[in-house]
């Protein structure tokens, strides 16, 4: 249990609370830009920018992605693992409900 790794699911409104921690964020790709910054709309309709340290392909190949990274500001995150394509058919609204519900069940999440 001591070596259990926890990468919580959060949305943009929780960035402040999770500053410097490694988290997972799901969002819709807004624009891929030219450099290593990518803009996402998160499940709670917030806009964040992702500093990409791995492949750009997951962002270019699908509408929805899951990012694992370190929160570096109120609307910014830096990848610590490659992003994952979630395809073009992902229900962001339900996902956001899950994030809201899970905060009520701290013995489970």
């Amino acid at each position, binding site marked *: 249990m001591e070596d259990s790794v926890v990468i919580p699911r959060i949305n943009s409104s929780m960035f402040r609370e999770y500053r410097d921690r490694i988290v997972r964020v799901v969002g819709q790709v807004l624009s891929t830009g030219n450099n290593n910054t990518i803009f996402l709309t998160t499940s709670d309709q917030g806009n964040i920018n992702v500093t990409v340290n791995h492949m750009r392909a997951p962002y270019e190949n699908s509408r929805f992605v899951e990012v694992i990274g370190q929160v570096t500001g109120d609307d910014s995150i830096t990848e610590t693992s490659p992003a994952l394509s*979630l395809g073009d058919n992902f229900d962001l609204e*339900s*996902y956001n409900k899950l994030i809201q519900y899970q905060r009520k069940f701290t013995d*489970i999440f």
Partner: protein
Amino acid sequence: MSNSNFNYEYNNQDGFSSSMDTSNNARKDLSNQNLRPITIKQIYNAERPVPDGSFKINGKDLDHISIIGKIQNVQSLSTNTIYTIEDGTGSIDVRIWIDTNDNEAQKRSLWSEGAYVRVIGSARVYHEKRSVMAFHIHLIEDFNEVTAHFLEVIKINLEERRNNDSFRNADKNLPSFDNSNYAPQNYNDNNNNNMESISGYSPCQQAIINLFKTQKLGEEGMHIDTIVSMLRSRFDEDEIKGSIEWLVSECHLYNTTVDESHVNIVGF
């Protein structure tokens, strides 16, 4: 004979079955087994009242479990493969035996770190560490399954706590002073930790919560218009509707499956 093997293997998880037992007992245990979606944190938090006995969550034996998470690490050994799986609540080692006749094993060998998988198995203790012995692992391709999995975990937990509560406090469901809104302190609330912070609510929000608590509602919940008509004498319609909206957005109430106009309380 193959059937008895099946019983033996699945019962052996607690380490008590030492023979190929095909007695009624073994069969009965098998029929009682269910498949429960859980989080990794729940595996670590599960109680084990009897050493080497089965794990329990909310007083229920943990039989077959289903977890969904991302592969963090793969360790291939000669007879089995160990995947470290992380699901947002924790990480745990999942061991699956390699069956050389198994086509699945070939498919699995292609999976690597970062892939989402569903694991069906049972919780174990191995070298004093909790882990999962998998019967089956498959790749997640539709990621809505991930959301659905965790929502189901919450639903099961709510149902169990509500059932345990009504069983333990059966007598408290009878009308009594303690049960009424006029009691100085509502003793039935001892399990409603989520509702405990009730002092932070407006009188109208509070009244809506109390209304739900005093009604015996089915899964369909209550129509918003019904709530409005029941509280109209104390609050105006817009305030009631606004409060309902707020309680939904804060997850105290939820829209039931009937339609958008029906809500029910999140509680036990």
